[in-house]
């Protein structure tokens, strides 16, 4: 297949999912880079995150892998809050703290691109959370509780409430 913008072979296949319909682009490496660079200026913050992310990943792997990888990563979902990576990159905001670990590969690339570094060296709370797994579980339990109430499963809701209270008072 030829690049849509020149005579070279298309090695980069992008499916743009931000609009109402998926848009396919078939481009050579040079035009693919141009496309990725330009889209940052054209789109709003949410989709420029995608660009930042793709650019970050493009630095780490050959360009023609990026689109395929992105598509696969988009399907990933956080087990705690239920947000998919696609949701995040289309809204520009994460669903819960666990997303930083659950999408760690993407977040590393993104954070390097935004901040140039990955390690916090500033202020540290005096009381660092020792029960962090429990606190993460709380998010999941609260979400389940909401769902149980919605489905009118009151017995389950009551059990969940007890569990939440138990962790909260620890």
């Amino acid at each position: 297949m030829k690049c849509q913008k020149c005579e070279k072979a298309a090695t980069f296949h992008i499916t743009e999912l931000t609009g109402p319909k998926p848009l396919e682009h078939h481009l050579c490496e040079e035009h693919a880079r141009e496309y990725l660079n330009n889209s940052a200026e054209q789109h709003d913050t949410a989709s420029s995150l995608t660009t930042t992310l793709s650019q970050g990943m493009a630095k780490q792997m050959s360009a023609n892998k990026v689109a395929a990888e992105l598509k696969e990563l988009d399907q990933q979902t956080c087990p705690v809050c239920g947000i998919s990576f696609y949701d995040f990159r289309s809204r520009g905001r994460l669903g819960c703290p666990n997303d930083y670990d659950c999408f760690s590969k993407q977040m590393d690339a993104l954070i390097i691109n935004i901040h140039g570094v990955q390690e916090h060296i500033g202020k540290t709370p005096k009381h660092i959370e020792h029960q962090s797994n429990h606190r993460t579980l709380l998010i999941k339990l609260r979400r389940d509780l909401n769902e149980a109430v919605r489905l009118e499963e009151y017995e389950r809701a009551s059990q969940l409430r007890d569990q939440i209270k138990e962790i909260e008072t620890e």
Partner: protein
Amino acid sequence: MKIDRMLSQLSEWLLGNGPENDIVISSRIRLARNLSGFPFMTRATERDRKSIREAVRSAVLEIFKPDSFYFVDLDSLDSLDRNYLWERQLISRELVETEGACAVLIDRNEKFCIMVNEEDHLRIHGMTSGFDPEKIWSRINEVDDKLEERLHYVFHNKYGYLTACPTNVGTGMRVSVMLHLPALVVSKEIDKVFRSLQKVNLAVRGIYGEGSQPVGDFYQISNQVTLGRTEKELIEKISDIVPQIVAYERQAREFLLRERHEIILDRCSRAMGLLKTARTISSIETMHHLSSLRLGINMGLLNEPDIPVVNNLFLNTQPAHLQKHNGNELSQTERDIARAKYLRHKLDEK
């Protein structure tokens, strides 16, 4: 309504004192914090939002004296009151428009505020008149320490304070300085300043923060990177740059005085004339002329009014403030008439 009491006072950040106050209007620092055990706002249910608000409410009641702050549930306010708080820079545009449970804690002296359920669970803001980020940092760092003793913050070993958007992760800190740069605008040097700021990773915005257009020659500069630097380093970076911009603006003012004296005097005098005589005037036109007035006073071209009076006019001619003073809602045409009347009255007082 308790927030109406603020109408008669000038916000701390508009007092017109503090270092470099002829050019630096105010300095501001924001810390983004989130509570563990809750999702970020995009995934928070109304129940979560209320629990977060109650957790913060009970923490602040333990920390601060009851008569030293207002804790306002924003969902109980109408749109006029929310816009009024926004014009005073006590809540963000996002909180003006949020539908679910959200709140703001406002220090009685308007030296700091804490937004609850904004983009992050907590946004602690400190502000002061003139250029003094260090003073704000020591103030809000203390507030942050006290809150942290009572609330569980989300903190990541590698990324630091976690935030809903990865652009704020790490320190969660944004240092911003609002500058009045009319001479650089007139002499068309402002673009050069912006380009050099972008090179050192500093963002430039209009007066009311993200996405807003510069009005009245006011510009806000702030750090973009929040991770991998200490809070002190972030403050130092802004502290290194701001004096340079201030010096550049002063140079431009001196040049105008020397080489374009009549032209600049004409601009300031016309602005005064217009503000004193207009029968109907929009908020943008007002900002534009007040900017010239402010420039004229600081350059010694106009003798009155005082800078705090001009600052007060900036705030009180904003749409929501005007309506609050008037005591009822006004259409745009009515506002423009009321604004002109207010300006004539205030500028003729002396």
